[in-house]
Protein backbone atom coordinates (compact mmCIF):
# COMPACT_ATOMS: atom_id res chain seq x y z
CA UNK A 1 0.00 0.00 0.00
CA UNK A 2 2.78 2.35 1.00
CA UNK A 3 4.59 1.58 -2.25
CA UNK A 4 1.51 2.48 -4.33
CA UNK A 5 1.17 5.81 -2.59
CA UNK A 6 4.85 6.61 -3.18
CA UNK A 7 4.55 5.64 -6.83
CA UNK A 8 1.52 7.87 -7.27
CA UNK A 9 3.41 10.70 -5.60
CA UNK A 10 6.38 10.17 -7.92
CA UNK A 11 4.13 10.16 -10.98
CA UNK A 12 2.60 13.44 -9.83
CA UNK A 13 6.04 14.98 -9.34
CA UNK A 14 7.37 13.82 -12.70
CA UNK A 15 4.46 14.95 -14.84
CA UNK A 16 3.29 18.44 -15.62
CA UNK A 17 0.17 19.32 -17.53
CA UNK A 18 0.59 20.40 -21.11
CA UNK A 19 -1.64 22.49 -23.36
CA UNK A 20 -0.87 22.77 -27.08
CA UNK A 21 2.50 21.17 -26.31
CA UNK A 22 3.30 23.97 -23.82
CA UNK A 23 3.93 23.06 -20.20
CA UNK A 24 1.25 24.56 -17.96
CA UNK A 25 2.64 26.18 -14.80
CA UNK A 26 0.56 26.53 -11.66
CA UNK A 27 0.50 29.69 -9.54
CA UNK A 28 3.35 28.52 -7.31
CA UNK A 29 5.51 27.62 -10.34
CA UNK A 30 5.09 31.17 -11.68
CA UNK A 31 6.04 32.67 -8.33
CA UNK A 32 9.12 30.45 -8.04
CA UNK A 33 10.23 31.34 -11.57
CA UNK A 34 9.87 35.03 -10.76
CA UNK A 35 11.90 34.68 -7.56
CA UNK A 36 14.61 32.65 -9.32
CA UNK A 37 14.87 35.12 -12.20
CA UNK A 38 15.63 37.85 -9.69
CA UNK A 39 18.20 35.77 -7.81
CA UNK A 40 18.92 32.16 -8.71
CA UNK A 41 21.28 31.72 -5.75
CA UNK A 42 18.50 31.61 -3.16
CA UNK A 43 18.08 28.33 -1.26
CA UNK A 44 14.86 26.29 -1.21
CA UNK A 45 14.35 27.42 2.38
CA UNK A 46 14.73 31.11 1.50
CA UNK A 47 12.33 30.80 -1.44
CA UNK A 48 9.88 28.84 0.72
CA UNK A 49 10.03 31.50 3.44
CA UNK A 50 9.45 34.23 0.87
CA UNK A 51 6.45 32.48 -0.69
CA UNK A 52 5.07 31.01 2.56
CA UNK A 53 5.44 27.33 1.64
CA UNK A 54 7.63 24.46 2.83
CA UNK A 55 11.11 24.14 1.32
CA UNK A 56 10.26 20.56 0.26
CA UNK A 57 7.38 21.91 -1.83
CA UNK A 58 9.73 24.41 -3.47
CA UNK A 59 12.19 21.56 -4.13
CA UNK A 60 9.49 19.44 -5.80
CA UNK A 61 8.30 22.29 -8.03
CA UNK A 62 11.82 23.23 -9.10
CA UNK A 63 12.73 19.60 -9.80
CA UNK A 64 9.59 19.28 -11.90
CA UNK A 65 10.36 22.44 -13.90
CA UNK A 66 13.98 21.38 -14.47
CA UNK A 67 12.89 17.91 -15.58
CA UNK A 68 10.42 19.34 -18.10
CA UNK A 69 12.90 21.86 -19.47
CA UNK A 70 11.04 24.91 -18.13
CA UNK A 71 14.16 25.97 -16.22
CA UNK A 72 17.02 25.28 -18.61
CA UNK A 73 20.05 26.50 -16.66
CA UNK A 74 21.40 28.65 -13.84
CA UNK A 75 24.16 30.96 -14.89
CA UNK A 76 26.43 33.79 -13.67
CA UNK A 77 26.38 37.12 -15.49
CA UNK A 78 29.96 38.43 -15.54
CA UNK A 79 30.79 42.09 -16.14
CA UNK A 80 33.71 41.75 -18.57
CA UNK A 81 34.67 45.44 -18.23
CA UNK A 82 35.12 44.99 -14.47
CA UNK A 83 37.75 42.30 -14.95
CA UNK A 84 39.50 44.21 -17.70
CA UNK A 85 38.48 42.00 -20.62
CA UNK A 86 38.21 44.15 -23.72
CA UNK A 87 35.75 42.94 -26.31
CA UNK A 88 33.41 44.07 -29.05
CA UNK A 89 29.82 42.95 -29.37
CA UNK A 90 27.96 43.15 -32.66
CA UNK A 91 24.55 42.38 -34.04
CA UNK A 92 24.94 40.50 -37.29
CA UNK A 93 22.11 40.09 -39.81
CA UNK A 94 22.76 37.23 -42.19
CA UNK A 95 20.59 37.16 -45.32
CA UNK A 96 20.24 33.60 -46.53
CA UNK A 97 18.86 31.37 -49.21
CA UNK A 98 15.59 30.15 -47.60
CA UNK A 99 16.44 26.52 -48.34
CA UNK A 100 19.63 26.73 -46.34
CA UNK A 101 18.69 29.10 -43.49
CA UNK A 102 18.12 26.32 -40.99
CA UNK A 103 21.56 24.89 -41.66
CA UNK A 104 23.20 28.35 -41.45
CA UNK A 105 21.47 28.99 -38.11
CA UNK A 106 22.67 25.64 -36.77
CA UNK A 107 26.26 26.26 -37.88
CA UNK A 108 26.22 29.74 -36.30
CA UNK A 109 24.88 28.29 -33.06
CA UNK A 110 27.89 26.00 -32.85
CA UNK A 111 30.39 28.89 -32.82
CA UNK A 112 31.69 30.08 -29.48
CA UNK A 113 31.81 33.66 -30.81
CA UNK A 114 28.03 33.62 -31.34
CA UNK A 115 25.95 34.27 -28.22
CA UNK A 116 22.43 34.33 -29.67
CA UNK A 117 20.89 33.17 -32.93
CA UNK A 118 17.34 34.02 -34.06
CA UNK A 119 15.40 33.77 -37.29
CA UNK A 120 13.54 36.81 -38.64
CA UNK A 121 10.86 37.05 -41.29
CA UNK A 122 10.48 40.83 -41.20
CA UNK A 123 12.08 41.65 -44.56
CA UNK A 124 13.84 38.91 -46.47
CA UNK A 125 14.47 35.73 -44.61
CA UNK A 126 17.36 36.51 -42.32
CA UNK A 127 19.18 35.29 -39.27
CA UNK A 128 20.04 37.71 -36.50
CA UNK A 129 22.97 36.81 -34.31
CA UNK A 130 24.78 38.44 -31.42
CA UNK A 131 28.53 38.04 -31.85
CA UNK A 132 31.38 38.78 -29.49
CA UNK A 133 35.10 39.04 -30.28
CA UNK A 134 38.28 40.39 -28.73
CA UNK A 135 38.49 43.34 -31.13
CA UNK A 136 37.15 44.60 -34.46
CA UNK A 137 39.79 42.76 -36.49
CA UNK A 138 38.99 39.44 -34.85
CA UNK A 139 35.28 40.12 -35.33
CA UNK A 140 35.86 40.73 -39.03
CA UNK A 141 38.07 37.64 -39.40
CA UNK A 142 35.42 35.48 -37.77
CA UNK A 143 32.68 36.81 -40.08
CA UNK A 144 34.88 36.65 -43.21
CA UNK A 145 36.30 33.18 -42.52
CA UNK A 146 33.51 31.40 -40.70
CA UNK A 147 30.20 33.04 -41.65
CA UNK A 148 30.46 34.37 -45.23
CA UNK A 149 31.69 31.00 -46.61
CA UNK A 150 28.72 29.06 -45.18
CA UNK A 151 26.59 27.63 -48.01
CA UNK A 152 23.40 29.68 -48.39
CA UNK A 153 24.77 32.97 -47.06
CA UNK A 154 23.81 35.75 -49.50
CA UNK A 155 25.09 38.84 -47.67
CA UNK A 156 25.77 40.10 -44.16
CA UNK A 157 25.10 43.37 -42.35
CA UNK A 158 26.87 43.96 -39.05
CA UNK A 159 26.37 46.69 -36.45
CA UNK A 160 28.96 47.04 -33.73
CA UNK A 161 27.47 47.99 -30.37
CA UNK A 162 29.21 51.05 -28.96
CA UNK A 163 27.13 51.73 -25.85
CA UNK A 164 24.57 49.69 -23.95
CA UNK A 165 21.69 51.42 -22.15
CA UNK A 166 19.82 48.38 -20.88
CA UNK A 167 20.66 44.70 -20.65
CA UNK A 168 18.00 42.59 -18.97
CA UNK A 169 16.67 39.11 -19.49
CA UNK A 170 12.95 38.81 -20.20
CA UNK A 171 11.12 38.31 -16.92
CA UNK A 172 8.07 36.19 -17.70
CA UNK A 173 6.32 36.41 -14.38
CA UNK A 174 6.30 40.19 -14.29
CA UNK A 175 5.43 40.86 -17.89
CA UNK A 176 3.51 38.08 -19.53
CA UNK A 177 2.02 36.09 -16.71
CA UNK A 178 -0.68 33.81 -18.12
CA UNK A 179 -1.80 31.69 -15.23
CA UNK A 180 -4.25 28.90 -15.96
CA UNK A 181 -7.86 29.69 -14.99
CA UNK A 182 -9.01 27.95 -11.87
Amino acid sequence: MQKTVNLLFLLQVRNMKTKNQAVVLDTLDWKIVQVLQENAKQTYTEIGRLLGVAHSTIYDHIQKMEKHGVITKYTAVVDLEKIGIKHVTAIMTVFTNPKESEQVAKRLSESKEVLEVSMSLSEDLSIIAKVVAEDQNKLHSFIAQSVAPLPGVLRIRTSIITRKYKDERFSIAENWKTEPKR
Partner: protein
Amino acid sequence: MIAISSISRILRKVPRENAFYFFTSIGNYTGENAASLEEFVRKVKEVDAKSLEFHLYRGDFEKWVDETLEDKELAEKIRSLKSLSPTGSSLRNQLYLIVSKRYKKLKGEFSS
Protein backbone atom coordinates in the same frame (compact mmCIF):
# COMPACT_ATOMS: atom_id res chain seq x y z
CA MET B 1 59.68 32.42 -66.67
CA ILE B 2 57.42 30.72 -64.15
CA ALA B 3 57.17 26.94 -63.98
CA ILE B 4 53.98 25.49 -65.47
CA SER B 5 53.19 23.78 -62.16
CA SER B 6 53.30 27.17 -60.39
CA ILE B 7 51.07 28.78 -63.01
CA SER B 8 48.61 25.95 -62.72
CA ARG B 9 48.60 26.39 -58.95
CA ILE B 10 48.02 30.17 -59.18
CA LEU B 11 45.18 29.74 -61.70
CA ARG B 12 43.41 26.92 -59.83
CA LYS B 13 39.99 27.27 -58.24
CA VAL B 14 40.29 27.23 -54.44
CA PRO B 15 37.76 25.66 -52.05
CA ARG B 16 34.82 27.80 -50.95
CA GLU B 17 36.31 28.43 -47.49
CA ASN B 18 39.49 29.85 -49.05
CA ALA B 19 37.75 32.14 -51.55
CA PHE B 20 38.03 35.93 -51.28
CA TYR B 21 34.88 37.46 -49.74
CA PHE B 22 34.23 41.12 -50.56
CA PHE B 23 33.16 43.32 -47.63
CA THR B 24 32.50 47.09 -47.63
CA SER B 25 33.40 47.54 -43.95
CA ILE B 26 33.90 45.39 -40.85
CA GLY B 27 31.36 42.56 -40.96
CA ASN B 28 29.45 43.88 -43.97
CA TYR B 29 29.61 41.24 -46.70
CA THR B 30 28.50 42.28 -50.20
CA GLY B 31 27.56 38.76 -51.29
CA GLU B 32 30.36 38.75 -53.88
CA ASN B 33 33.28 36.34 -53.71
CA ALA B 34 36.06 35.00 -55.90
CA ALA B 35 37.48 31.48 -55.79
CA SER B 36 40.14 31.92 -58.50
CA LEU B 37 42.28 34.62 -60.07
CA GLU B 38 39.97 34.63 -63.09
CA GLU B 39 36.93 35.32 -60.86
CA PHE B 40 38.89 37.87 -58.88
CA VAL B 41 39.68 39.86 -62.04
CA ARG B 42 35.98 39.86 -62.96
CA LYS B 43 34.84 40.90 -59.48
CA VAL B 44 37.31 43.80 -59.30
CA LYS B 45 35.35 45.29 -62.19
CA GLU B 46 31.94 44.66 -60.58
CA VAL B 47 32.05 45.16 -56.81
CA ASP B 48 31.33 48.40 -54.95
CA ALA B 49 34.42 50.67 -55.02
CA LYS B 50 34.06 51.00 -51.23
CA SER B 51 34.85 47.32 -50.97
CA LEU B 52 38.04 47.74 -53.03
CA GLU B 53 39.16 50.60 -50.76
CA PHE B 54 38.33 48.65 -47.61
CA HIS B 55 40.37 45.60 -48.63
CA LEU B 56 43.29 47.38 -50.33
CA TYR B 57 44.18 49.50 -47.31
CA ARG B 58 43.76 46.60 -44.87
CA GLY B 59 46.16 44.56 -47.02
CA ASP B 60 43.55 41.82 -47.60
CA PHE B 61 44.08 41.52 -51.38
CA GLU B 62 47.85 41.08 -51.19
CA LYS B 63 47.47 38.61 -48.31
CA TRP B 64 44.98 36.44 -50.22
CA VAL B 65 46.98 36.55 -53.45
CA ASP B 66 50.19 35.70 -51.59
CA GLU B 67 48.93 33.08 -49.13
CA THR B 68 46.03 31.47 -50.97
CA LEU B 69 46.81 31.82 -54.69
CA GLU B 70 50.55 31.72 -53.89
CA ASP B 71 51.43 34.44 -56.42
CA LYS B 72 54.08 36.55 -54.70
CA GLU B 73 54.75 38.70 -57.76
CA LEU B 74 51.13 39.81 -58.05
CA ALA B 75 50.93 40.32 -54.27
CA GLU B 76 53.91 42.67 -54.46
CA LYS B 77 52.33 44.68 -57.29
CA ILE B 78 49.09 45.08 -55.33
CA ARG B 79 51.07 46.09 -52.25
CA SER B 80 52.89 48.81 -54.18
CA LEU B 81 49.56 50.20 -55.44
CA LYS B 82 48.73 51.27 -51.86
CA SER B 83 51.55 53.83 -51.87
CA LEU B 84 49.74 55.75 -54.64
CA SER B 85 46.65 56.04 -52.37
CA PRO B 86 44.09 55.61 -55.12
CA THR B 87 40.36 55.69 -54.33
CA GLY B 88 37.06 55.13 -56.16
CA SER B 89 37.16 54.51 -59.90
CA SER B 90 40.88 55.30 -60.08
CA LEU B 91 41.55 52.45 -57.65
CA ARG B 92 39.27 50.10 -59.59
CA ASN B 93 40.98 50.92 -62.91
CA GLN B 94 44.51 50.57 -61.56
CA LEU B 95 43.79 47.38 -59.65
CA TYR B 96 41.98 45.90 -62.65
CA LEU B 97 44.92 46.72 -64.88
CA ILE B 98 47.35 44.98 -62.52
CA VAL B 99 45.32 41.81 -61.95
CA SER B 100 43.99 41.41 -65.51
CA LYS B 101 47.47 41.86 -66.98
CA ARG B 102 48.86 39.25 -64.62
CA TYR B 103 46.01 36.85 -65.37
CA LYS B 104 46.44 37.21 -69.15
CA LYS B 105 50.19 36.68 -68.85
CA LEU B 106 49.83 33.51 -66.77
CA LYS B 107 47.02 32.18 -68.93
CA GLY B 108 49.11 32.83 -72.06
CA GLU B 109 52.16 31.07 -70.67
CA PHE B 110 50.05 28.16 -69.50
CA SER B 111 48.42 27.72 -72.94
CA SER B 112 51.62 28.00 -74.98
